[in-house]
């Protein structure tokens, strides 16, 4: 039996602004991880990565990042990914103030 797939989201940096974006179910990119598509099947995740890599005019360096289902949608697991959802801790800049547009 295959091992259970650890849920993931696809994330990248936006070409023009450089900030973190996440791939949604309807083939768009969101600045809010809660709107991301949570991938729970490896084969489907591979298909979605192919789609993400085909969007070079929006998404730079797409990759799969571990995530969990939260109350409002996917939430990050790793600390680094947590930082990408909000911005630096020393200044009120980034998504924590600009909002996840």
């Amino acid at each position, binding site marked *: 039996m295959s091992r259970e797939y650890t849920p993931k989201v696809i994330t990248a*940096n936006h*070409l*023009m*602004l*450089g*900030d*973190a974006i996440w791939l949604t179910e309807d083939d768009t990119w969101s600045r809010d991880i809660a709107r991301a598509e949570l991938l729970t099947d490896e084969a489907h995740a591979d298909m979605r990565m192919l789609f993400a890599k085909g969007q*070079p*005019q929006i998404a*730079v*360096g797409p990759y799969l990042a571990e995530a969990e289902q939260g109350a409002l949608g996917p939430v990050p*697991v*790793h*600390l*680094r990914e947590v*930082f*990408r959802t909000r*911005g*630096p*801790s*020393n*200044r009120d*800049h*980034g*998504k924590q103030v600009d909002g996840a547009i």
Partner: protein
Amino acid sequence: MYHYSDFDEAFVRTRVDQFRDQVARRIDGSLTEDEFKPLRLMNGLYLQLHAYMLRVAIPYGTLNSRQMRQLALIAARWDKGYGHFTTRQNIQFNWPKLADVPDILDALADVDMHAIQTSGNTIRNVTADHFAGAAADEIADPRPFAELLRQWSTDHPEFQFLPRKFKIAITGAAADRAVIAAHDIGLQVIERDGALGFRVLVGGGLGRTPMIGKVVHDFLPQSDLLPYIEAIVSVWNLLGRRDNKYKARIKITVHEHGIDEIARLAEQRFSEIRPGFSGVDQQVLRDIEAQFAAPDFETKPMDCFHAAYDADPVFRSWVDINVSAHKRDDHAIVSISLKKPGATPGDATAAQMDVMAALAEGFGHDELRISHEQNVILPHVARADLPAIHAALKDADLASANIGLISDIIACPGMDYCALATARSIPVAQEIATRFEELKLEHEVGPLKIKISGCINACGHHHVGHIGILGLDRAGVENYQITLGGDGTEDAVIGTRAGPGFAYDEIVPAIERLIQAYLGLREDASETFLQTYRRTGIAPFKAALYPEKENARAA
């Protein structure tokens, strides 16, 4: 200071035009990211956690007021109103938008600046003693040599695809303020029989395999500088481990082949290429040196300085701590601290940059320096002007009297910005500085260098901190290792790891225990932390860091 020649100007403008075209082609889809990435990195443009980051070179850490004002303008117009001065005397802008970067590079070119070779496997910005040209203990101003190296290394066709990055630092004084022993090549200007030359170190570096540089030449004649450095880089360019990026730096090459073999190969290569250096480089050097002539110092009455020094304890403390000896007794070197307790080490707002530029223009012969310790220096000020300078700095929130003390912490951007980081470093620096301010212990503790890196690459120089802190990721949680007894001066030593790491909320209390241990151990107030450590060894400090272990042993 150096002003661009027509050649420099044309070269930099051409590069900006090329990059403008490359950005346009990336945006319209003609270039893929794989094609574009090396091009943007050649121009200092990184992609970090939250945004692009532009690293601008500040050659040998020297700026004039016009350049500092332009950095302020860039911060205000195209970024979020501040910039971050780095441990390699550069400045980083954390929030540029891709489409704006060509305009930013044009604005830099307007003031003889660029971001070329601030990334990639090239020869990076040559760093220098931030007191160069001003220090009382200096043999010669190292910056003309640094500028010669900059011109030689910029776009040098042989060295655009090196095995890895390559960093050169130079000092003109015996007291090493440029950490030359932790560079791929470290140069110290020395004098022998009335002639200037260089002591050349090779193979130093921090990162995952920290090494102190080894002497490859104990007196290199001045006129042999370029061919000899070219010979070393050339030898490494062939021998360097391109198969493994963790073994690609020259420190590993020196370690694997031995310093004697590297010296032999460098001599051999040197003898081949030396005839090609016809003396044009020395002519160029003389032209450069003329541009670094000492300013016309003015003698001013010192009464108001003495009066302020006697009357104002805040001013007195600032002078005692932040002001260093200048080669002229009636002048001084001012270190402006970018380390106000609680602030981000190395950050300056656009308004603060403008204030520092105005001070340089009004009182400092138009010169500013950036130190690798992430502070700003006014290298040439009359002592008579110190009260006015201090007053202006107070108004700009730049008057912290803490240079060389516990809150004058070097910290890399860490996980708050950097894509490579494994842990935060800025908040750790902020909390240590704030904690010791609350305890009012900073002056009691005296000279102490804490250096923090948020990953193994060691941009925060933690190995050469008296107390070094390295932030790592342990199973998804930040964990901080402490090293003790490091030293980045002429007596360079790599610190020793104290033991297991500490969680984020344990690191500040751990540092506090170390400091309390030092205060209990020192023979008297004149014995510094490093001196005490060297006298007692690591054991009592380990005992303070890990009291549970000590208790278990006692039980």
